[in-house]
C-alpha cells in the first residue's frame, strides 16, 4: 500500500496523457473514463485514510525508494497523516463531483477538459501529501497552470479571458515569492525536506532569514488562498470559470493555500517562532479577520451568483486563516473542520447554481427573479439547506468548526475574534439566503438594483456584474438532469453532516495534535521512529457554542428577510449622517476590484510589504 501511494498523483496523470494519445472517444466514454478514474482516486485515498487512522504514525513513503541517510533526505517524501490525507480525500471527492456534474453540463468539450481536470486532481493530491518543500512548489504550479487553463475555458468571452489573466499574473508572482522562501531555507539548511529543514531550524532563533522565508512562503500561499489584499484575482476568476471547475476551485483549491501555511509552519517554523507566538497570532488574526469581513461585506453586494459565492469563499478563507493563525492544536482542528464543512457546502451551492444556469441561461440574481421555480423543488431545498449550513446552526455544517474555533480563540486569549467570524458567518449566509429567496421564492423586488441599502454614489458607475449569463451550455434544456440534483444534494448533505457527529470533533482534535507535533513528524519521516502520541485536547458541547450557532442563523435569516422586504426598512435604521460615509466607503472598496492586473499586482506588493513588516515586527 505504501509503495503504491505515489499513484494517487501519477494515476490521474497517466489517464490524462492517454486521453491526449487516444483517438477521440465519444463524449460519453470520456465522461465514463474520467468518472471511473476520479472514483478510483476517492477509493484509493479513502483506503489510505483508513489505513493511516488505524496506525498511530503518519505513513511516509519515499518516491524512488530513496530512504534518508542518517537524517538526510536524498529523495522526495510523501507523508500521509490524518489531516493531509483527509484534505486529499476532500479534493478527490470534489473532482468526482465535478465530473458527475459536468456529465450533463457541457455539450461539446473534447477530452481537453477531462484531461485538465484529471491533472488538476492529481496535482492537488500531490500538494496535500508532499513532504518536500520544492515538490510542494511544483504541485502548486501544476495546480495553478491547470486552473488558469480551466478558467480560460470560454476564452472567446472577455470575462474568462480577463479572469484567467489576473489569476495567472497574480499567482505567478505568488509562486516567485514561494521560490524565494525555498531558496532562503535551502541556503540556510541545505535541505528541501520539510522535516529535515524543521530539525535544522529547531534550535536557531527567528533571524532575518527565517522570518523572511516564512513571510515569503506565506505570501505565496496567501495569494493562492486569496487572503485580502492578495484576493482580487479570485472574484474575477471564479465568477467566470466553468461551474464544474468552480466546484473544485472554491471547494478546495483556495483552502489548500491555508493548509500549506499550516503545513510549513508546523513542520519547519514551530521551533524558532515558539517565543514569538503571542505577536505572531496578532498578525495572522489581523489578516484573517480583515479577509473574513471583507469577503462577507462584498458578497452581500453581489448579484452575479458565482461572484457572490466567490466572495463567500474569500470570507470563509479568512475564517480558516483565523483558525490556523491561532497557532494551536485546537486552531488547526477548527480550521480543518471549517475547511471540510464549508468546502463541501460551497461546492454544493456552486453545483446548485450551475443547475440554475443550466436551466435558465442566466447567472444574475435580479434577472433570475423567481425563475428558480423552473428548477425542481428539491434543488431549491438543497440550496437553502446549504445556505443555512454556512451560518453553522447547532449541530450542522460549520457548527463544529466554529465551536472548536471559539474554544481555541478563548484559550489563547483572543476571544474578541469570535465577534468577527460570527458577523462574517451571518453576512455570508444572509447573502446566499437573499439570493435564494429572490431566485427560488420570488421574494423581494425584481427590479431592485441596490443590494446594499445605501444607494449608488453620485455619478455612479455601471453595475459591472449585471450581464447576461454565460453560454456554458448549448441550447435551453427543458429539464434539470437528476445527476445534478443528486450531486448537489450529496455535497450539501456531506457538508451538513460534518457538524453532526461529536466523534468527528474528537478525531479531528487527535489528528490536529499529530499535525502540530513537529518532533514526532520529523522522527517518523527521517528515522522511521515512532514517538508517543501527543495528548489531544478534549472539548464538550457547551451552551455558548449553541448560542452563537442560533445567533448566526437568526441573524442571517433576519438580514436576508430585511433586504428582501418590500420597502427598505433596513435603510431607515441607519442614522442619516452615517449613510454618506458608509456609501462612500462601500463603493471605494468595491471599486478597488478594478479587474486590472497592474492594480492587483500593486496590491499584492503592498500586502506583501505590510505582511513582511508586521511579521518582522512581531518577531523582534
Amino acid at each position: 500500500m505504501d509503495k503504491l501511494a505515489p499513484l494517487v498523483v501519477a494515476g490521474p496523470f497517466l489517464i490524462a496523457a492517454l486521453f491526449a494519445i487516444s483517438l477521440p472517444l465519444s463524449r460519453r466514454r470520456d465522461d465514463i473514463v474520467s468518472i471511473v478514474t476520479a472514483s478510483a482516486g476517492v477509493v484509493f485515498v479513502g483506503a489510505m485514510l483508513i489505513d493511516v487512522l488505524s496506525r498511530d504514525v503518519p505513513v511516509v513513503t519515499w518516491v524512488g525508494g530513496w530512504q534518508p541517510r542518517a537524517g538526510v533526505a536524498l529523495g522526495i517524501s510523501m507523508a500521509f497523516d490524518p489531516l493531509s490525507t483527509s484534505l486529499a480525500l476532500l479534493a478527490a471527492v470534489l473532482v468526482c463531483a465535478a465530473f458527475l456534474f459536468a456529465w450533463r453540463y457541457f455539450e461539446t468539450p473534447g477530452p481537453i477538459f477531462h484531461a485538465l481536470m484529471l491533472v488538476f486532481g492529481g496535482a492537488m493530491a500531490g500538494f496535500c501529501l508532499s513532504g518536500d518543500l520544492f515538490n510542494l512548489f511544483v504541485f502548486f504550479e501544476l495546480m495553478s497552470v491547470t486552473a488558469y487553463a480551466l478558467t480560460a475555458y470560454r476564452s472567446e468571452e472577455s470575462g474568462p479571458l480577463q479572469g484567467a489573466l489576473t489569476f495567472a499574473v497574480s499567482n505567478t508572482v505568488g509562486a516567485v515569492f514561494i521560490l524565494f522562501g525555498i531558496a532562503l531555507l535551502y541556503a540556510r539548511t541545505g535541505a528541501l525536506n520539510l522535516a529535515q529543514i524543521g530539525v535544522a531550524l529547531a534550535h536557531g532563533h527567528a533571524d532575518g532569514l527565517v522570518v523572511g522565508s516564512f513571510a515569503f512562503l506565506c505570501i505565496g500561499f496567501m495569494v493562492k488562498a486569496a487572503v485580502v489584499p492578495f484576493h482580487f484575482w479570485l472574484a474575477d476568476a471564479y465568477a467566470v470559470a466553468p461551474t464544474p471547475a468552480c466546484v473544485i476551485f472554491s471547494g478546495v483549491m483556495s483552502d489548500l493555500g491555508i493548509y500549506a501555511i499550516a503545513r510549513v509552519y508546523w513542520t519547519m517554523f514551530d521551533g524558532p517562532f515558539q517565543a514569538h507566538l503571542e505577536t505572531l497570532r496578532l498578525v495572522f488574526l489581523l489578516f484573517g479577520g480583515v479577509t473574513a469581513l471583507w469577503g462577507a461585506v462584498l458578497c452581500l453586494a453581489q448579484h452575479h451568483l458565482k461572484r457572490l459565492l466567490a466572495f463567500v469563499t474569500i470570507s470563509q478563507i479568512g475564517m480558516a486563516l483565523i483558525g490556523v493563525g491561532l497557532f494551536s492544536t485546537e486552531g488547526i482542528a477548527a480550521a480543518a473542520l471549517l475547511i471540510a464543512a464549508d468546502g463541501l457546502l460551497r461546492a454544493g451551492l456552486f453545483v446548485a447554481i450551475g443547475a440554475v444556469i443550466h436551466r435558465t441561461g442566466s447567472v444574475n440574481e435580479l434577472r433570475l427573479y423567481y425563475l428558480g421555480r423552473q428548477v425542481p423543488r428539491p434543488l431549491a431545498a438543497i440550496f437553502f439547506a446549504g445556505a443555512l449550513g454556512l451560518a453553522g446552526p447547532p449541530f450542522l455544517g460549520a457548527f463544529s468548526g466554529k465551536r472548536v474555533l471559539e474554544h481555541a480563540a478563548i484559550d489563547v486569549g483572543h476571544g474578541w475574534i469570535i465577534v468577527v467570524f460570527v458577523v462574517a458567518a451571518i453576512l455570508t449566509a444572509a447573502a446566499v439566503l437573499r439570493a435564494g429567496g429572490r431566485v427560488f421564492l420570488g421574494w423581494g423586488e425584481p427590479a431592485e438594483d441596490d443590494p446594499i441599502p445605501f444607494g449608488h454614489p453620485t455619478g455612479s458607475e455601471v453595475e459591472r456584474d449585471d450581464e447576461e449569463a454565460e453560454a456554458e451550455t448549448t441550447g435551453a434544456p427543458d429539464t434539470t438532469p437528476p445527476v445534478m440534483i443528486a450531486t448537489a444534494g450529496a455535497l450539501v448533505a456531506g457538508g451538513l453532516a460534518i457538524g453532526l457527529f461529536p466523534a468527528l470533533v474528537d478525531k479531528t482534535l487527535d489528528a490536529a495534535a499529530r499535525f502540530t507535533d513537529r518532533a514526532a513528524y520529523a522522527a517518523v519521516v527521517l528515522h522511521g521512529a515512532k514517538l508517543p502520541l501527543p495528548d489531544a485536547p478534549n472539548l464538550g458541547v457547551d451552551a455558548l457554542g449553541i448560542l452563537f450557532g442560533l445567533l448566526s442563523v437568526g441573524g442571517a435569516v433576519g438580514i436576508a428577510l430585511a433586504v428582501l422586504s418590500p420597502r427598505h426598512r433596513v435603510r431607515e435604521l441607519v442614522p442619516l449622517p452615517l449613510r454618506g460615509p458608509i456609501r462612500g466607503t462601500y463603493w471605494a472598496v468595491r471599486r478597488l476590484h478594478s479587474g486590472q492586473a497592474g492594480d492587483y499586482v500593486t496590491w499584492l506588493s503592498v500586502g506583501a510589504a505590510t505582511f513582511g513588516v508586521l511579521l518582522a515586527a512581531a518577531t523582534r
Partner: protein
Amino acid sequence: MSFLPFAIAIWIFLVGLYGVVSSHHLVHLVICLSVVQSSTYLLLLGIGYRTNGAASIFVDIPLNTKAVDPVVKALTLTDVVVGAAVTALLLALAVQAQKRFGTVDPDELDPLRD
C-alpha cells in the same frame, strides 16, 4: 562583494515587478513577468555556487573534486521549463485578447462581459 549576486536577484525581481505593474501592453507584461521569474534562477544558482567549484559532471574529473551544488541546478532547470510554460500560456491569452476584443492593454479588459 559576496552579496552582489543576491542583491542583483532582488533588483531583477523588483524591476520586473515594476514592469508588470506599469505595463500597458499584455505582451510587455508577460515578458516582464518572465524577468521576475528569472530572478529566482539567479538566486538559486547564486546560493549553490562554491568558489572554484566545478560543475557536478564527473566525466573528466575525479570524484572528490570540489563541485558546486547540483540540487539548485536541478531546481533551476525545472523552474526554467515551468516559467516558459506559464509564459506561453499567458501569451496565448494575450493573442486571444487581441483577436477577440481588439485590445492588448491589460487595463481595458473587463472582468465580466460588457
